[in-house]
């Protein structure tokens, strides 16, 4: 009876069967993601139609019909507009970007001295890349070179006036040189200063606390444009007689202080997220204030707020365009300024120039964003859900 009962019970496991054809491979993916329902199907068709409609036009405009080099506006205009292209031609005028490339990068920095910013850029990349790759050793030395030695060397290289280098006043700087130098100094200053301000704001010492609160709330309460105006118009009034700063330096200070105030609040958010037990644990180990903060609290807090910190960096990088209002020409400012050159006045000039500027900004912002995501993953030692 028992044996008879057992006869239909399997003694070995059934072999795994492949998933039914409707649930695997490209067909299943298409079915699930693109035509899962009537609504999906309609959206898919619409989406494909839009892509087919736009992408060929964009590729045609930006690459196939585009003009890559030329002496003046004639290469980017049709015969009716006074140029050499056939009627009905539209395409990007990269020739404009090509002809103005030096200006977009360096402003009106003298052509024969442009090796100096290029050298600074090479040094910067040479120091930044090993800094960003975790495997490369000697991070301490690298950091000192990048954040202390490089700014000093760059200052003398860019400004000149020593070692036989001709002096180049900052009024002639422009383009990406201004965008990058303002944001690099802003980033390098704002992070440590933001940490100090954030700690100060949570300090139990009333004077320090209130100084930090007043600074942060003052700066956060006014727009960057006002800070720049203040830095370029009001600041000289508060300085003793005979002390004058140039416009670039004033903008540099304005941007750095502004970013520091924002950074302080981002970091304070991280500090608040650290459980009280961590502080108490550090206290019970007998650590002093700086040891507690430096070894226990800040490493955890900063890791938590990486997205916020990078957000501030990216925001500041883009905000540097505002220096245009104090007549300094960053990348976007130089591009727009060159629209006024009658030798390049064509219907395509403005589009091409602005797309180029947008592309450069995107390149840097996207790079920062990807690196921050990588850092987050690398430092992810807990809290993950």
């Amino acid at each position, binding site marked *: 009876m028992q044996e008879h009962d057992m006869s239909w019970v399997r003694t070995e496991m059934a072999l795994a069967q492949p998933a039914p054809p409707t649930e695997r491979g490209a067909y299943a993916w298409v079915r699930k993601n693109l035509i899962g329902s009537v609504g999906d199907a309609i959206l898919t068709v619409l989406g494909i139609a839009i892509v087919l409609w736009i992408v060929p036009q964009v590729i045609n405009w930006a690459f196939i019909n585009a003009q890559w080099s030329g002496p003046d506006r004639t290469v980017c205009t049709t015969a009716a507009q006074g140029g050499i292209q056939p009627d009905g031609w539209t395409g990007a005028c990269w020739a404009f970007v090509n002809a103005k490339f030096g200006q977009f990068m360096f402003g009106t920095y003298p052509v024969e001295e442009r090796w100096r910013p290029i050298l600074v850029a090479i040094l910067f990349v040479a120091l930044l890349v090993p800094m960003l790759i975790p495997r490369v050793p000697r991070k301490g030395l690298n950091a000192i070179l990048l954040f202390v030695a490089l700014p000093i060397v760059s200052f003398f290289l860019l400004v000149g006036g020593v070692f036989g280098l001709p002096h180049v006043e900052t009024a002639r700087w422009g383009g990406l040189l201004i965008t990058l130098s303002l944001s690099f100094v802003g980033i390098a200053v704002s992070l440590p200063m933001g940490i100090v301000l954030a700690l100060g704001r949570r300090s139990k010492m009333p004077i320090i606390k209130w100084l930090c609160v007043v600074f942060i709330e003052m700066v956060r309460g006014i727009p960057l444009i006002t800070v720049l105006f203040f830095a370029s118009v009001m600041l000289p009034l508060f300085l003793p007689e005979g002390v004058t700063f140039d416009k670039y330096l004033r903008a540099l200070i304005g941007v750095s202080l502004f970013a520091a105030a924002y950074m302080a609040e981002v970091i304070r958010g991280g500090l608040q997220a650290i459980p009280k037990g961590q502080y108490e644990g550090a206290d019970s180990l007998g650590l002093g204030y700086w040891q507690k903060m430096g070894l226990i609290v800040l490493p955890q807090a900063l890791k938590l707020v990486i997205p916020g910190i990078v957000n501030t960096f990216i925001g500041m990088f883009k905000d540097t365009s505002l220096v245009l209002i104090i007549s300094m020409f960053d990348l976007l400012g130089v591009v727009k300024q060159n629209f006024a*050159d*009658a030798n390049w*006045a064509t219907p395509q000039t*403005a589009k091409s120039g602005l797309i180029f500027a947008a592309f450069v900004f995107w390149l840097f912002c996207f790079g920062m964003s990807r690196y921050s995501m990588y850092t987050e993953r690398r430092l992810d030692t807990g809290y993950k859900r």
Partner: protein
Amino acid sequence: MKHIAIGILGAAALGFMASAASAGTLDTVKQKGFIQCGVSTGLAGFSAPDDKGEWKGIDADFCRAVAAAVFGDGTKVKFTPLSAKERFTALQSGEIDILSRNTTWTSNRDSALGLDFVGITYYDGQGFMINAKKLPGVNSALQLSGAAVCVQSGTTTELNLADYFKKNKMEYNPVVFEKLEEVNAAYDAGRCDAYTTDQSGLYGIRLTLSSPADHVVLPEIISKEPLGPAVRQGDDQWAHIARWTYFALLNAEEAGITQANVDEMKTSTDPNIQRILGTEPDGKYGADLGLSNDWVVNIIKAVGNYGEMFERNVGSGSPLKIARGINALWTKGGLQYGPPIR
């Protein structure tokens, strides 16, 4: 508080020193070795950077002419791009020595703002541009009754437009935008029949339209926009140098002295040319201005005469192709008239 007080005192002292220093702009300029020239942040044909980042245009060339008159070298000039808001403060505070920035000469600016205009290097005025294909047969602004007119909002242009149509008892339909780019795009897309702004600007805008040949600038000018360089009030010598640099450019054109023939002209026996070029034996017209006697030779070598400057930057030698019109010499039916150098 003490520091702020000291700071304010310091600022006041600096302001005082600046005004004291401005008494001798020529000396200051000679001492520092260059002229600081305020230009626009970019206006086609007047002041705009070229491919090498050099400032080009009538306004930029005028500063080169002054530098040539003072130093004998037209390259001894540094340009400061200024926004419309900053321009007068920059001149008053001594940041720049001369403002050559497509600035309209008005009574208020001449008196209340402490400026001294030295001349009118370009007679501009508000005009109209139409699409001749769309409106065939229209060759005067007086035929624009009932037209849709593209105009930038919040400018005197908008007010002048209203005045003009009201005065001529015509109807119009303003199509108003905040930004210049938007006005350009709307006009190019055919949303209005006519576009109005300063005439010199219309020629620049025409180049960026999709079919520039179809568009014509109508002859009527409905406002006066005399554009010229300005210096700080209260420094007569410096104002004279700037003013006579402008007149020298005009006189050279009238006498037929050009960049190419200026060296031959130095041997001319025509007394007028001799006086202009400082080759007259006992003439010292340059020295009277505080310059060298061959100051005009230097100016012409650096930038050419007024006509050459005009054609190179906005006229037939440039993409703008603006006709001389009222900017022709008085001998050719225009308004440009240089008092004699003698």
